[in-house]
């Protein structure tokens, strides 16, 4: 079964709801959350399919299948369905969808959010759902009004016949009796009313008044609060615990072992946290306990020196390419481990009763969350309800669900509703990380500025094996652990010995033509847990590639923008972005002492170029302004696209200027925002976003703004100081 099977997008199933409405689902074979839709009937609302409910008083409720973590997905997807339904997304009630196969991400095949794909993959299905529903309402109105459907049209929630306007809600009872049209023709791009318009996000008001509910805000009568003390060296098991002092602390309710460490449960969070500090635990010694930061890079270098690599991609003739080059360069680039630090630390609240469970959290996969509760409690899936509230930032961190395992283990042990909250220290010290990476690039450039040879090796850990280890038990709750261990062990072996984990090397050549290239990989895994981090592999590969492009330009005496243009002749979308960036650059007035650096990168089907205006003040790198040029195809709501790119610049700047997770004998040294700094208002640059629309369907916006910023700043620093900084975070000599 291909997960891209287009037939999944067709509306196939028909049935009746309790409320008398029609129910229709997108057929997604392989998903197992069938049965009644998790939709509460609102005042005789008509539920044409999983995504909509229309009430007789003309309220339209949209059930958003993707998790809102700030990327604006609720507004974006509401706009897509609203466009074809002809109902202003701003006037919709937008709710998080419950768990059902009809909400599975068409590309992942499971209900999950990530990879900047939501708008891209729901673009087709939601337009069709909107168009078919509108056609159904027209048919119902035609019947009720005794006219032919062709005499009717619509306008923002109203059926129009002559001078009369009737709300959609007038026809829902009839609509529920009629067959749902299929394959209704979609609107032409030129006739879009809401797509391409700018209006406030549907969640802007709730998020400006404190009313928006996040996972941490769940409050269940009688609940107790838990914190977990986890291994200071990730993966170490508890050898022994002395609970005496902790048990004597005020408010402590219970101390229970969980698979990741020891949980302290108290009648208040801060009390649990205080008690946790006096818990005495001795942990087993594991190999990661020998690893300190300096050794990480040394080990990467050793692996490359041994040449024990697996090829990821090759094209053309490298030897001939180097022969054709007039200049050749070789350099190493390094990026450290990073934590995600979403501002809301991960948390979950679980209430288990005799034969059911209810979970409140904010995760990037509610299907995974339910699967873990099912696996651990043995309760039937249909009796486990998951409420996915707003996510206080995701960035990849909320795709891993170890906190759901912990809260379930605690709730099973204490027989009370429990809220588990990770402290910021837990988040920084005991999380999962963006892998550290060493990238060695040897490249040759001709006198015409064509990169004629491009030879790259990357050393570091792979995220896919860890991700499978974490996701398989969640997504396959009934598969026995022995089989799961076998599967994730196999993935680890596969990616270190036989083939390259795509996310480890993504972005090392794809932005450019590079006719003669070789990308090779050496897996060096120290055992620190790894996972997706906003823009994944691109977050480090772009730094290496775009720094080297700048070095080549300098060596060959070619303007850096011209070099990039010369090597994107066969990448028309990126070429167009670069041309726009070039024009923007020409019109800039750069103050004395300020310098521009550029970088470009394609990721998540989106092409982005960034120009950073930088100065050096009292030995500090100051970024004043960033111009971000992006081609995202059709921008659903251009203001939200701009906001994502602005935010991506800030997120990337934190990594450029400050971000590093260091290991000392296997323990993460950083612990809170004083030593794991985040960019703040007084260092935030102005961001000017220029959207280039080459036409075509929408592409990703959440992640692609991140990769170019680090190299753009590094390239500007080179201009300002002559120092070529090849390690992140950037540090002036």
């Amino acid at each position, binding site marked *: 079964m291909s997960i891209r099977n287009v037939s999944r997008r067709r509306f196939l199933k028909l049935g009746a709801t309790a409320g008398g409405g029609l129910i229709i689902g997108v057929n997604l074979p392989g998903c197992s959350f069938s049965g009644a839709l998790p939709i509460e009937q609102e005042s005789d609302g008509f539920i044409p399919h999983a995504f909509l409910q229309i009430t007789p008083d003309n309220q339209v409720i949209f059930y958003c299948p993707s998790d809102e*973590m*700030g*990327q*604006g997905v609720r507004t974006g997807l509401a706009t897509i369905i609203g466009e074809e339904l002809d109902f202003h997304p701003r006037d919709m009630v937008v709710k998080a969808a419950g768990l059902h196969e009809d909400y599975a991400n068409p590309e992942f095949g499971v209900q999950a959010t990530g990879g900047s794909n939501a708008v891209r993959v729901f673009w087709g299905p939601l337009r069709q759902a909107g168009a078919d529903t509108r056609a159904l309402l027209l048919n119902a109105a035609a019947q009720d009004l005794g006219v032919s459907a062709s005499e009717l049209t619509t306008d923002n929630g109203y059926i129009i016949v002559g001078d009369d306007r009737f709300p959609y809600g007038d026809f829902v009872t009839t609509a529920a009796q009629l067959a749902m049209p299929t394959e209704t023709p979609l609107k032409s791009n030129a006739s879009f009313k809401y797509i391409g318009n700018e209006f*406030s*996000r549907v*969640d*802007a*008001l*709730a*998020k*400006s*008044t*404190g009313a*928006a*509910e*996040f996972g*941490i*805000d769940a*409050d269940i009568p009688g609940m107790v609060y838990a914190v977990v003390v986890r291994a200071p060296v990730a993966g170490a098991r508890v050898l022994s615990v002395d609970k005496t002092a902790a048990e004597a602390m*005020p*408010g402590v309710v219970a101390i229970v072992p969980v698979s990741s460490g020891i949980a302290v449960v108290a009648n*208040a*969070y*801060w009390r649990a*946290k205080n008690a946790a500090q006096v818990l005495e635990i001795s942990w087993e010694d594991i190999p990661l306990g020998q690893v300190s930061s300096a050794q990480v890079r040394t080990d990467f270098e050793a692996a490359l020196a041994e040449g024990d690599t697996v090829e990821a991609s090759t094209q053309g003739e490298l030897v001939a390419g180097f022969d054709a080059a007039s200049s050749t360069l070789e350099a190493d680039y390094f990026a450290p481990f990073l934590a995600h*630090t*979403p*501002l*809301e*630390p991960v948390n979950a609240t679980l209430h288990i009763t005799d034969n059911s469970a209810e979970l409140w959290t904010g995760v990037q996969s509610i299907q995974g969350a339910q699967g873990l509760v099912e696996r651990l409690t043995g309760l039937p899936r249909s009796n486990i309800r998951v409420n996915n509230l*707003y*996510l*206080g*930032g*995701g*960035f990849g961190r909320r795709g891993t669900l170890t906190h759901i395992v912990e809260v379930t283990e605690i709730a099973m042990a204490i027989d009370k509703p429990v809220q588990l*909250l990770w*402290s*910021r220290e837990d988040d920084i010290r005991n999380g999962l990380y963006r892998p550290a990476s060493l990238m060695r690039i040897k490249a040759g450039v001709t006198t015409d500025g064509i990169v004629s040879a491009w030879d790259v090796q990357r050393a570091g850990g792979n995220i896919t094996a860890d991700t499978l280890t974490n996701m398989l038990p969640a997504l396959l709750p009934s598969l026995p652990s022995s089989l799961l261990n076998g599967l994730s062990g196999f993935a680890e072996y596969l990616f270190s010995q036989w083939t390259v984990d795509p996310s480890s090397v993504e972005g090392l050549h794809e932005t450019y033509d590079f006719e003669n290239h070789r990308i090779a990989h050496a897996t060096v895994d120290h055992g620190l847990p790894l996972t997706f981090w906003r823009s994944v592999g691109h977050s480090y590969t772009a730094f290496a590639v775009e720094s080297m492009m700048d070095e080549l330009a300098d060596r060959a005496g070619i303007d850096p923008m011209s070099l990039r243009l010369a090597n994107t002749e066969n990448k028309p979308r990126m070429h167009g972005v670069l041309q726009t960036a070039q024009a923007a650059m020409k019109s800039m007035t750069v103050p004395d002492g300020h310098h521009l650096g550029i970088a470009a990168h394609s990721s998540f089907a989106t092409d982005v170029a960034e120009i950073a205006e930088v100065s050096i003040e009292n030995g500090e790198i100051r970024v004043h302004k960033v111009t971000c040029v992006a081609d995202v195809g059709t921008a659903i709501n251009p*203001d*939200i696209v701009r*906001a*994502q790119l*602005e*935010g*991506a*610049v*800030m*997120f990337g700047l934190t990594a450029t200027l400050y971000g590093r997770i260091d290991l000392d004998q296997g323990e993460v040294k950083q612990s*809170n*925002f004083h030593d794991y700094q*985040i*960019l*703040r*208002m*007084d260092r*935030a640059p*102005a*961001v000017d976003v220029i959207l280039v629309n080459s036409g075509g369907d929408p592409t990703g916006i959440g992640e692609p703004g991140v990769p170019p910023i680090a190299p753009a700043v590094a390239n500007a620093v080179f201009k300002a100081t002559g120092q070529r900084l090849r390690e992140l975070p950037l540090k002036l000599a």
Partner: protein
Amino acid sequence: MIEFELNGQPVVFNGASDTPLLWAIRDHFKLKGSKFGCGAGLCGACTMHVDSTAMRTCILPVAAVAGKRITTIEGLSGDGLHPLQAAWVEHNVPQCGYCQSGQIMSAAALLSSNPRATTDDIDQALAGNICRCGCYPRIKEAILSVAELSYDATTEETSA
């Protein structure tokens, strides 16, 4: 027993006097708009007004606010929206939204003491509020739009 004023109402807190104000407000008084981000005074997510001054309440024991006036995001505007909240919607400021209560409370404290705040004033007053989603340019624009409104209003009064 600690008495103080919460969003205009007298309240009594009977729990431990070393409870951080943030948790007293969230878990005892059930006002969840103020957030926990670091627990160490480093991020500003928990910002409330204590007698009109913006304070980090994750490190402020409830005993320290006896007899004082506490305002949370829920009590910022009596009715309707505070001008900053309207500006937040207008400028499409929030992304994940988690930091925004704290940002707005810091901004409101700034504007009440300095209605004509400049970009530099904003940088200083808001530097304690982290936004991991990076909404800074919009936060700044939104505050400036309100500061400029008050500037216009004052100018008109003077010229009238």
